[in-house]
């Protein structure tokens, strides 16, 4: 084995990650080459130095926060927010907070219906307007948007938010528990 190739295999040799034949070849080279013996010793010492680092001790509040992951900081997903709102409405209904409204619904169904329709319209108005605005904006902006992302992807794919979101996003959750895909072994 030549000096250059042995040099590149030294780290893997230190870790016992070479095939038996490779390891033998490196070992033979080490007997002849003082420079590689020196490099080998230094690599091993570097590894041992790192292995000797004590594990980082998490701060005390770390464990409490892990116990209630939803309670702190993070934004709850929309589904949970809706569920929470529904639960609060149900509780309010049971508590009788809606008694006057119940009276209207029973005695004057037409009023109640009109009121609900008006509320729905008021709620829907900004949504519809927003959609129209967005559609309008796309007509003008779509070329610019595509152009921008194409340039960005070509220039630095890992900086493009949309692209990285695609690569590193939550899509991975589905893969938990799945048998890992065979790993490419193109160099060994």
């Amino acid at each position, binding site marked *: 084995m030549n000096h250059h190739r042995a040099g590149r295999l030294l*780290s*893997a040799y230190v*870790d016992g*990650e070479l095939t038996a034949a490779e390891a033998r070849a490196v070992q033979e080279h080490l007997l002849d080459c003082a420079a590689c013996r020196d490099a080998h*010793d*230094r*690599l091993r*010492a*570097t*590894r*041992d*130095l*790192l*292995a*000797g*680092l*004590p*594990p*980082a001790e*998490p*701060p*005390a509040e*770390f*464990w*409490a*926060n*892990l*116990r*209630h*992951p*939803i*309670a*702190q*900081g*993070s934004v*709850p*997903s929309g589904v*949970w*927010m809706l*569920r*929470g709102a529904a639960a609060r409405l149900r509780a309010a209904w049971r508590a009788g907070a809606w008694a006057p409204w119940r009276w209207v619904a029973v005695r004057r169904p037409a009023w109640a219906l009109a009121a609900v329709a008006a509320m729905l319209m008021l709620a829907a108005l900004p949504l519809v307007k927003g959609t129209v605005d967005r559609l309008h904006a796309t007509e003008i902006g779509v070329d610019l948007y595509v152009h921008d992302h194409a340039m960005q992807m070509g220039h630095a794919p*890992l*900086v493009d*938010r949309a692209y*990285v979101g695609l690569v*590193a996003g*939550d899509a*991975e*959750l*589905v*893969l*938990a*528990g799945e048998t*890992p895909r065979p*790993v*490419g*072994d*193109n*160099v*060994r």
Partner: protein
Amino acid sequence: MSEIAATVAIMAPPEGVRAPAYTAEELARYDGIVQRYARHVYNIAYRMTGNQADARDLSQEAFLRVYRALRRVQPGAPLESWLYRIVSNLYIDLLRRRPRARVESLVTPIETARGEMVREFPDIAANPEAVFEREHIDAEIQQALGVLSPELRMVLVLSDIEGFAYEEIAAILRVPLGTVKSRLHRARQVLQQRLRPYVEAQRRGWRP
């Protein structure tokens, strides 16, 4: 180990918390995952970020994802690869969101108007008494880790600090085995130069 004991207690979500309605059994399962992996996740996050606050945030975010996906995680499935990949991705995410705190390799020359310049570091062997104390060495090693690019650092942390085999690292980071080998070799070479006095001391069989 009182912190761990604390996490064993059944996790009844406090009043008013918008949490998915998990059964006691599922919560116990989540707790098991926390107990098994939390220290490793935190350690990796700490060695990657180099500070407590970011390490805590990264780990908590990683476990939040586990918590949300709990029903999709098969009981007993090995979560190592998945969790550590999340930590790795979250760290890359952190670097991207914080471009000013972007980690720049200290060994690459700086471009100036008068050509390239190489950074100079204080000689770590200049103060012999303080140098060989455990805390001082840990700090020096952590600082040296920060010099590496995130890719090299992640491989080094998984291999030399967490003790994973090359195949496992390749699976966690989803890179070819040859890439793991070459990154690890480069990372150790850089560190060995940065930490020369300690490496030499370690060679001579010295222990802090």
